[in-house]
């Protein structure tokens, strides 16, 4: 560097001009290619979100269908005992049931008898890889949540978790490509971690079970899904896997990298 090239003072204008020039001189990859990938990414995330809501609807549809079957069975039993009921009238509720099933769009749930057993097993396997849906409300005064966890799970929504007389917990939902994670913070520090984990189970409507405690971290399961709890800033906190292939080691890594 020569003396005459050296700015005598570092002025705001020099910095501003340097940044403008830098941003103008950069040569990014073709914009069209990047845009296509962004569009695909947005579409993929929308589909995942839709799949999550479809999952809810499916649970509701199954519950409604089961309820309908029970109601119709009761009606059937009552009608069997009533010999005077004409057969033609028995068809009416069945047609109504058929129509209702169609309205709920459950046709893809109907499977041939020989496949039914396989589907049950598949459904059971699915049930252990995802937390059942739980109720949340929007958090009116959320704490500051990180925008991303390990650069792969992104903040989606701040929620409030409630369960009867238990204190409410702050929660944040994080979505990755295939994974979904819940980060929970208690509102005060008076709870023991064991109580926090037990209460958390009630908040997310999944039975929770403490597995072990190592170096201040408590490993637990909620409906078979891995979770990790710890105390920080006088708060109980926990990460629970809602769905997707997140191992306990990955939870440890996420926890270690939290700001």
């Amino acid at each position, binding site marked *: 560097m020569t003396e005459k090239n*050296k700015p005598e003072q*570092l*002025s705001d204008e020099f*910095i501003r001009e*340097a940044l403008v020039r830098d941003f103008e001189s*950069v040569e*990014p*990859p073709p*914009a069209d290619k*990047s845009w296509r990938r962004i569009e695909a990414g947005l579409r993929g995330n929308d589909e995942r979100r839709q799949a999550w809501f479809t999952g809810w609807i499916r649970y509701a549809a199954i519950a409604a269908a089961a309820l309908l079957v029970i109601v119709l069975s009761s009606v059937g039993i009552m009608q069997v005992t009533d010999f005077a009921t004409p057969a033609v009238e028995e068809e009416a509720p069945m047609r109504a049931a058929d129509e209702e099933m169609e309205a709920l769009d459950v046709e893809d749930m109907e499977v041939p008898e020989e496949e039914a057993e396989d589907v049950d097993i598949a459904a059971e396997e699915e049930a252990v890889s995802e937390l059942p849906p739980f109720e949340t409300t929007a958090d009116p005064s959320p704490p500051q949540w990180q925008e991303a966890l390990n650069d792969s799970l992104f903040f989606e929504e701040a929620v409030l978790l409630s369960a009867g007389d238990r204190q409410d917990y702050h929660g944040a939902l994080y979505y990755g490509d295939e994974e979904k994670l819940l980060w929970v913070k208690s509102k005060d520090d008076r709870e023991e971690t064991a109580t926090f984990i037990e209460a958390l189970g009630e908040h997310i409507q999944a039975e929770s079970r403490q597995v072990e405690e190592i170096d201040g971290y408590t490993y637990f399961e909620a409906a078979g899904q891995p979770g990790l709890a710890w105390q920080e800033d006088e708060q109980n906190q926990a990460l629970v896997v809602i769905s997707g292939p997140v191992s306990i080691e990955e939870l440890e890594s996420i926890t270690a990298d939290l700001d």
Partner: protein
Amino acid sequence: MEPEELKKAVRKNDNDSRRLLFEAYYKKTYAVAYNILRSRENAEDITQDAFIKAFQNIHQLHDETKFGAWLAVITSNLARNYLKREKRINYTDQEVIADGASEADYTEESALLNMEVDRVRRAIKNLPPDHYQVIVLQYYYDLRVEEIGAMLKLSPGTVKSRLHRARQRLARELELNDDPACLKDRGGERE
């Protein structure tokens, strides 16, 4: 992009509006990512992730005219997290910067000025990500300390001290005296 057009696009957030925003901010966003990551491939990935994240969370942006700065924050945070995860903080790499003065017929005075600006530019590129982030937000996007604090979730005091340290570092890099007299203007103290 005009402020009104920007506001409209942010509020609408449909495919056409997203495309407009992408075209307006693609180069700047890539520049931020590249200056932190020093890898074209990673900068490309981070730029795309930043746009996706921004479009999905655009409802969280209260002042639509600050879209560019907000996107820069998302981008730099993603890039910093990437480095943190990869544990490859590599901000002392040197890179050859094209000489902006070469294509024009400058006078000796303006040529010298250009060389000085390029040196500042090189020094900025060597800042650590935290310092680079606040410098870009204050000097390029012209945000106030409070606005930077709100975007980065930092107190104004932390932002001020980060800006001050960034400028000190630039001064050292440019072999200027660390004496505050050499840190001309109001940098790091703008309210």
